[in-house]
């Protein structure tokens, strides 16, 4: 078990800044995910930890050892690759044994570790197969077994599931999580799939434009995003440009967008008048009986049915909003053209600075809590 510390890391490719100001501290045994869109720098960060890129500035620590000057083959990190990178000319056994042979372990020890690793990934009996006889999922299992057989200080996953089909992806991600917890090896996992990140991780770092946007537990990342990027990259969100108006009771102000009038928590230390108002589709309650709170009525434009959820797109006071209706029953989904009434609970509303995207937090957070749990 080893912790990982990244200090002031910077990496450029020519003129392009791939990473800057990266500071991370990953705990022993933690499952840590780097989440971001393609080209955001998450893979570069992972490869810098592995030693395939040399940083331009900063430090990489594995436990008490500073490794940023070590060549890749001496870093003792087990990497699982996006395209498996299973050696096609070696059998499954030889693939898993490769790193052990490099370490000059005695033969019985190699055999013991290979079969233990293959057992963990459910590939017993496949020792003599060659990679071309394996499916994609099986090849990735070989990749995982190969990486953990060397008992590395940390496991590195570079989008390991993105080449698998949807069903297998779900199966494998649970398996990876289980294996990692069983072995207790610190893991850094790169993905662009936010659902995957939420499910698999202990903590997530959302990366964009070469910078870490937010680090936190999946719950915090989703429920309490620190900026507009995190809010809109993780999960769906409705964004409304609004004008802040008069005070509406202690700690609250009115916000106006078109003909919408909403009572929102007053942001602290913010003297601008325009804000970006955000709420998640599931936080709007469709409630024809409600009489108090932020009531909004609108005209249904279109609907979509996704099984457990129905999405309703409605035009409300000049804004186009998406709201979710969970577990819809027959007759629950309104027809296009019909009118719906929505209530937008204050605790589901988030405010962002429209200029730099920073979250604008209310003066007294205690006043808005309660709905979050």
């Amino acid at each position, binding site marked *: 078990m080893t912790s990982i510390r990244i200090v002031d890391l910077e990496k450029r490719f020519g003129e392009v800044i791939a990473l800057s100001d990266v500071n991370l501290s990953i705990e022993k045994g933690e499952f840590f995910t780097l989440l971001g869109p393609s080209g955001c720098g998450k893979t570069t960060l992972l490869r810098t930890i592995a030693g*395939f890129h040399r940083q331009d500035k900063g430090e990489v620590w594995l436990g008490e050892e500073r490794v940023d000057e070590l*060549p890749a083959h001496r870093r003792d990190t087990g*990497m699982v690759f996006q395209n498996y990178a299973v*050696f096609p000319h070696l059998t499954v056994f030889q693939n898993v044994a490769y*790193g052990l042979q*490099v370490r000059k372990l005695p033969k019985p020890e190699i055999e013991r570790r290979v079969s233990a690793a293959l057992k963990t990934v459910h590939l017993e009996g496949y020792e003599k197969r060659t990679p071309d006889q394996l499916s994609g999922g099986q090849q990735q299992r070989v*990749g995982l077994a190969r990486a953990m057989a060397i008992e590395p200080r940390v496991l590195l996953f570079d989008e390991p599931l993105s080449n698998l089909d949807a069903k297998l992806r779900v199966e494998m991600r649970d398996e990876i999580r289980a294996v990692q917890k069983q072995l207790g090896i610190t893991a850094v996992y790169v993905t662009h799939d936010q659902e995957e990140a939420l499910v698999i991780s202990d903590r997530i770092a959302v990366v964009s434009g070469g910078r870490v946007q937010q680090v936190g537990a999946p719950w915090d990342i989703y429920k309490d995003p620190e900026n507009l990027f995190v809010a809109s990259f993780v999960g769906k969100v409705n964004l409304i440009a609004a004008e802040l108006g008069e005070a509406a009771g202690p700690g609250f102000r009115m916000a106006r967008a078109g003909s919408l009038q909403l009572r929102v928590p007053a942001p602290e230390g913010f003297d601008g008048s325009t804000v970006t108002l955000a709420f998640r589709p599931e936080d709007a309650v469709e409630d024809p009986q409600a009489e108090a709170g932020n009531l909004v009525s609108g005209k249904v434009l279109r609907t979509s049915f996704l099984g457990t959820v129905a999405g309703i797109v409605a035009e409300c006071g000049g804004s186009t909003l998406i709201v979710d209706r969970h577990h819809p029953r027959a007759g629950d989904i309104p027809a296009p053209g019909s009118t719906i009434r929505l209530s937008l609970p204050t605790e589901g509303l988030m405010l962002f600075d429209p200029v730099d995207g920073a979250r604008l937090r209310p003066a007294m957070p205690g006043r808005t809590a309660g709905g979050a749990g």
Partner: protein
Amino acid sequence: MSAAAKGPPRQIDVWTFVTLGGFAIVGIFLVWPLADVFRYSFTDKESGLLSFSNWLEFLSKKYYLRAFLHSMFVAVSTTALSLLFGIPLAFLTTRYRIRGSALLNTVAVLALLSPPFIGAYSWVTMLGRSGFLRLALDSIGIHLPPIYGALGIVLADSLQYYPFVSLMTAGALMTIDRSLEEASENLGASSTRTFFRVTLPLVLPSVTGGALIAFMMSLSNFGTPMIIGGNYLVLPTLAYNLFTSEVAERPGMASTVSLVLMLCAAAIISLQQWASARRKYASMLVNRPIIKRLRGLPSALAHAVCYCIVGLSALPLAVVVFYSFKNTKGPVFIKGFGLESYRQILFDVPKTVMNSFTYSLIAVALIAVVGTLLGFILARRRTLAARILDPLLMIPYIVPGTVLGIGYIVAFNQKPFFLVGTSIIIIMTYFIRRLPYSVRSASSILRQIDPALEEAGINLGSPPGRTFRTITLPLMKAGIISGAIMSWVTSMNELSASILLYVGRTMTMPIKVYLSVLDGFFGTASAMSTILLVVTGIALYLVNRWTGKGAAQAVVGV
């Protein structure tokens, strides 16, 4: 390793020395000899001063210009005929079921790879002054002129080089996504319209590519015009004649003609590069075209066309093999069959046979090792040095053997490299002429190997050298070996450079064939040629076994 190379501070490692070695080889054995040729062409023969006198002479005398026009005529005609033979053959064998099409393919490749002078000499025995076919036709009242001259060269060249067109076109035809043609027909186009509006445009870049290679090969061919050309001089034979007869100390005119030849070749190669750069159509989809089955007359016609084309190109080879078993008495053939000609070779010139094998095998070992290492640098390390080395390694593509031979004689006849007359100089010509093919094939194999495999090796704790040995090299093995076999064949059959460089004790089989033909010893020439053909056939078989793909790709994978 690729990733390690991206780090800012470049460390000196094994690949640094490989790069330096690459520069040394290219500098000494390529740039320097060619620089000498360049220098002599701009040096006055008499005074030794810088001058354009050679070029003025070239441009003002009909003798030289005529050779240039001859070369163009031969190359253009050969290309036209190659298209005429190649396109129908490719289309018929890929789109219709032709019985024995694998055999046809093999025979075509064999004809392509056989030493060029064999075909020429065989056509001479058939249609030359006393050619048996010509005499036979004469006796039934069909009078043909002897084959010598432009006609003979074009006949021999086109029947040898059309497979470049047919193989590349067939390759493209097989990788066209069937859906494209289906889409065309679905939109209402007839199958004829589909062929001309969809299929042909899609394969056109490959057709052009093949045609340009045929043009290039014909342009730089030396053996064929030497044997069958008679007084019809083309640029390579002109350069050879000038060089061997120029009494002056400075081979000014031979160098000038060489440069003209290289300029033409460079123009063709750049056209070919341009054409192949546009070859982006080949789709990776496995929606392969359907092979239709023909019946009745159409089927018979299709078979007839294919077998006629390939049969015609195989005819000279068959004749050579046939003559090798005929009994001889000195230069004349007598009745009966036997192994007399082979006995003569083994007893009279075993050294020549040995030389051919020794030189070509040493050259191939060098080519495989150096080519693989340099290929790695080009594919995996995009350093400035690698980017300079890359185009330098392309030079041998545009240097006809005759030109390289001339360059070697003038460059290595002086200190510090006194190599003229040694076996080293012949081995080095084999090596240099084939090196770019090997480098290119190694780097293209490497580009198909996912760098993540090497990274996985390194990540598991294996140092770069060990990773190359245990991961990269095993994955490249099949490609390296089949490339080496192809190099071996071309080296065994090399004539145009070695004819200038050999001395008595460094004689090789192609040179002996050429000299035997000149002296009229057709029996020995046939037997020697047959041995070369058998070697070529064995090599083809080996490539087939190693790659399972046939030699077609190795041949056209320029």
